[in-house]
């Protein structure tokens, strides 16, 4: 408990320092609970998520960093490895490939990388995975783009 709190506090300080260094990630700690974090990440360029801003919710367990944080998308996203309804993310480093040397910041970076490189063979969103697996890149792109515009971009006008 004490160890996780101390580590999160260190991460918090690190985040304050690195804010400028990584403009794609904005990590915010809950005012009253250091185990609850949210993050805003920018959709990577040259993907259907470009220009969108996606919100992530972190729930950090007391055994952190020996155990991984639970992360999910709060913003709706059409991606093979993200559950369309719950926002749950299928990413190995959040499950069995977790290492205590990862940080919340590096988890965000890994999620951005996952957005750019989906793994259609282990899909949480089967519709999205099937589009990619059947080679319908255009279909995938336009669906993902539509949801990015609907959910992750400021409404115009």
């Amino acid at each position, binding site marked *: 408990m004490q160890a996780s709190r*101390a580590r999160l506090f*260190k991460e918090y300080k690190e985040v304050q320092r690195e804010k400028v260094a990584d403009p794609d990630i904005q990590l915010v700690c809950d005012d009253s609970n250091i185990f609850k974090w949210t993050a805003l990440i920018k959709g990577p360029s040259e993907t259907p998520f470009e220009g969108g801003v996606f919100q992530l919710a972190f729930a950090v367990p007391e055994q952190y960093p020996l155990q991984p944080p639970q992360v999910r998308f709060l913003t709706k996203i059409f991606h093979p490895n993200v559950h369309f309804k719950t926002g749950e993310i299928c990413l190995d480093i959040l499950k069995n490939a977790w*290492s205590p*040397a990862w940080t919340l910041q590096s988890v965000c970076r890994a999620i951005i990388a996952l957005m750019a490189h989906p793994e259609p063979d282990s899909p949480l969103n089967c519709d999205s995975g099937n589009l990619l697996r059947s080679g319908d890149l255009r279909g995938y792109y336009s669906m993902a783009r539509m949801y990015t515009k609907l959910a992750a971009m400021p409404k115009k006008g």
Partner: protein
Amino acid sequence: MMPDMESNHHLNRFLREEDQKPLQHLPYTVLKEADISQRQLDDITQVCSTLSVARSAAIILLRHCNWNVSKLFDNWFDEEDEVRITVGLFKNPPVDQFSTYGSFTCEICFETFPGGDDFDDQRISSTFCDHFYCRACWVGYISKSIANDGLGCLSLKCPHPCCGAAVGEDMIFVLAAESADKDKYLRYLLRSYVEDSYRKRKIKWCPAPGCDHAVDFVDYVGGSGGACDVSCLCSYKFCWNCNEEAHSPVKCDTVAKWILKHKDESENTNWILVNTKPCPECRRPIEKNQGCSHMRCRAPCKFEFCWICLGPWGGSHSCNSYLQGVKNESDKRKEVAKLNLDRYIHYYERWVANHESRQKALVDFQLVQDVHLKKLDRKYRQTNPILSFITEAWLKIIECRRVLKWSYAYGYYIPKHEHGKRQFFEYLQGEAESGLEKLHHCAEVELEEHINADKPIEDFIEFRTKLVQLTVLIGNYFKNLVRAMENDLPEISSFGDYWSCYICTYVNEGSATMCVMCSSQSPVHGEV
């Protein structure tokens, strides 16, 4: 006192022959925990000395090759560098970039440790890489892995995400938080030797609960699908092929079907058996929930009958007087489903009965060994008869109960149209069963009489002759039964569309309703 010399002579010769029978060579070895450890240690030591590596490195290498020493040597001498990289035993760990002085920050807890006396004590890497973490974080990392990763803790890696450096036994032992963790790690190491073994399907744990033995089946070829009984030192017998309790000579797939069915229906069937009687009219099971014997079946049957005699309830019903040979002929209209259930219950009841009888026999046999044999020994000490015949009879009973139990599963699955086969099988089974009952009775009840009552030695010798003869006889009956089940009665099934008369054995054509020779009824047409 002169015992019957003649029979005694035969008896002793019989017993001697039994004793002198050479121990059958078993195709498998039961390994105790110490044996497994010893084998594992031998392998590890061999690798240590041949490759000049430490014990912890040898463990990592052997586990990578599924404990196959020769494969490890082949790989190692072909591609040592590649093997080292794969398992994380780097030859030259990258040079420590930090200076030995100044401070050090742990990448897990982000704590900074000042230089000084305890500097090196806090700065720990996996010895194969230059990723340093503080002692407290290492302890947490290791204990979490031992607690959660199962056998995976044996291939623990450096916490750095991009580093594959191995964390070996030596390091775990230094840093394990509690001695319980060390014990757990050693248990996983032992389990790994059996469960990760390259000799898959040739070495496995005894499935009996609480048993620590493993069985090494040296010559197992597999693939045949046939039953293959293995007897562990804990006295549990299991089938090597399907891991169920021993069921030879019945085949594994028959047993699997039976167990599945038994899981589905046994509870219901049991309850019905214990608590109900079938309505004599519609065969629906009825539970008696009121005191008087006047029963009325539910609509649409509405049959009224007596709970005791199951006869119809007339105006002035009475079943107090004994009448010979009165049969109720009203149960011709059985439903097919009900028939099937009845049929299943028939076999299941006998399967259970033999199972329980065997369990009881196991307990009784223990008592015989612990108490009765000693009593008998004291009682007849002067004449000093050999008492091993009692042990043999009991062992025979226990084994035959097992075979008989599974023979009911076999019988249940004999295809309906193969009447000849079933008839012949049931004949063998019947012989075996009634014989076994005699033997069981003799070993159970009559033995008791000899223990408790003060009988002369002649009586005991007579009892001995009887029990020995029964044991041999029952042995032969069961040999026949086992052979029939093993061969699946091919000689019978080859009859095809014929049936053999059970009175005169004449082989009739399938369509004949009566035996051409003796006019007895065909079992095909005679059966319900």
